[in-house]
């Protein structure tokens, strides 16, 4: 009867030994290779720091003008431009300008990283069912595993700071980029692809002239999701030393500062809405050819 009521788990000692063994071997690994791995990420750190400095040293009117200009180029919507200007003005008014610049630079760098890593992986997945069957479960894990769990090895390996924070954000935010690139390319009309073959396109020409342009609306939905998820990760990443709007939120949570939490939270929401509207309306403008007829 005991067999049925008690799960035949491993013994307490066995489990402890197992955990210790895993911990110890990872500690050894990070002691051995930690510095080298840190060195690999050094250019990324320099870029991150440089970009953050650039944003923070830019005079605020110039920054607002540049962002509004980008918003106009991407969306061609005066409403979005005005909304952007007002949001940044309010953020500055409530004394959150510097933190916001840190967060914007973090989001920008992580989005760039997600695109430059995620796009090729998505393309690879779309070309081979085998690659897809390998990558899909990894993405499932990345999206469902609680983010605190992978913060542990990242911190053990790289310590606390911007780069581990960036890695945590990228792990969290890259899956939609990869998935939607893969999906978008797989959805490209097979007849158009056949035409490309019939005119003698090589695989690269097929990819650049047909597959990516036709997958672009989906790819852009992926970029949009990636930006949104990076922003959502900002607060958690502040736990391991990422500066920006997340840190005051963290402070507000631990000290029960309601107003502080609200202000910074609202600033994150404002950024999210701005980025979302701009990237979405750009994505829609890419599909302009689909209007009229058909």
């Amino acid at each position: 009867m005991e067999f049925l009521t008690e799960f035949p788990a491993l013994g307490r000692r066995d489990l402890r030994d197992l955990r210790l063994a895993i911990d110890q071997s990872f500690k050894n690994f990070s002691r051995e290779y930690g510095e080298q791995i840190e060195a690999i990420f050094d250019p990324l750190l320099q870029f991150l720091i440089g970009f953050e400095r650039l944003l923070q040293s830019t005079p605020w009117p110039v920054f607002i003008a540049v962002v509004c200009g980008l918003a106009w180029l991407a969306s061609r919507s005066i409403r979005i431009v005005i909304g952007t200007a007002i949001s940044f003005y309010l953020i500055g008014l409530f004394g959150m300008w510097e933190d916001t610049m840190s967060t914007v630079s973090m989001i920008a760098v992580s989005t760039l990283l997600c695109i430059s890593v995620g796009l090729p992986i998505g393309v690879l997945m779309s070309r081979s069912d085998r690659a897809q069957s390998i990558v899909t479960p990894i993405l499932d894990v990345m999206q469902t595993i609680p983010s605190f769990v992978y913060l542990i090895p990242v911190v053990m390996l790289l310590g606390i700071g911007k780069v581990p924070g960036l890695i945590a954000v990228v792990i969290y935010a890259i899956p939609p980029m990869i998935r939607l690139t893969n999906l978008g390319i797989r959805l490209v009309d097979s007849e158009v692809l056949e035409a490309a073959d019939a005119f003698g396109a090589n695989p690269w020409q097929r990819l650049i002239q047909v597959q990516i342009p036709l997958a672009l609306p989906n790819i852009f939905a992926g970029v949009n999701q990636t930006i949104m998820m990076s922003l959502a990760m900002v607060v958690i990443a502040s736990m391991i030393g990422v500066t920006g709007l997340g840190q005051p939120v963290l402070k507000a949570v631990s000290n029960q500062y309601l107003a502080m939490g609200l202000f910074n939270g609202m600033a994150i929401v404002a950024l999210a809405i701005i980025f979302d509207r701009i990237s979405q309306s750009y994505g829609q403008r890419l599909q302009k050819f689909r209007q009229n007829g058909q």
Partner: protein
Amino acid sequence: MGSNMTTKIEIKSLYKIFGSDPAAMMEKVRDGMTKERLNDEYNHVLGLNNINLEIPEQGIQVVMGLSGSGKSTLIRHINRLIEPTSGEVWIDGVNVLSMSESELRDFRRQRASMVFQKFALLPHRTVLENTQYGLEIQGMSDKEARQRACHWIERVGLAGYEENYPGQLSGGMQQRVGLARALATDADILLMDEAFSALDPLIRTDMQNILLDLQSELKKTIVFITHDLEEALRIGDRIAILRDGRVIQQGTPQQIVLKPKDDYIADFTRDINRGRVIRLKTIMKPDNGQPGPELSGDMLVEDAAQLVTDSPSSHARVMDGDSQCVGVVNITDLIRAMARPDIESRIEDL
């Protein structure tokens, strides 16, 4: 027509079997296993069954068949979009199936272009950019490609629509873009896969006229797939009829209409307007000196009937290319040729 032309494309004992292990099925098919048995017992589909076809240079070869007959599969073997299970496709003395990947790409870029049933245009590119597509792949400079594309857009009657997107055009106009795109590469072989089947009847006739007009000047080797016998008779110099992956008859439009090889083809041809297929030299009788308008031997019976009716004489004199009289027809012959009854008995040799 036909025998005096050189062969451009020669398809030799071509087989295509779809399924998990086509090579293993080849022997059974060669030994005469039917399509049905192959499907029922071995779960393989016999797409093409021993196709042998000689396609003349500078002519329009129509391949006609109903859906499932294998005609679209066949045309895709010519530029090897589909690999055969067995067989050869010779074009100007080169076997397409022995080409390396890069040779094949070159062949597709320079030698054979294709027009598709559902147009297959790039929706994110304008008419001009679509027409330039093949040239871009060839690596032509943008300026030259643009010039050439503009020329062909004008030739297919789309001048003024260069900056429109395909989604803004009607089906007929989209297929003109498809045609311009195919012609722009300057390939000497044009593969047309049910190119006009998706169009309304009136627009289809328009497109047939455009094609015939262009062909009279360009003299390309055209392989044209269709399921419509009227279309086949109208534009084909030669017609091959495909059924269940097999060529059941090939010949000129007149041969198909006047001497259908079996009941299946006879069924098809029964409702055809013979006056638009049969030519004077087919039904003429020896010259008996009767006066009348002088007509070309290649003239269609229907057109001749019109002219003879309008003339004071009830006869027409049939002339050859050197303006020599080679025979006569009278109005009764013309009417008899257009009527449906079996006239095979009256025509010994075609």
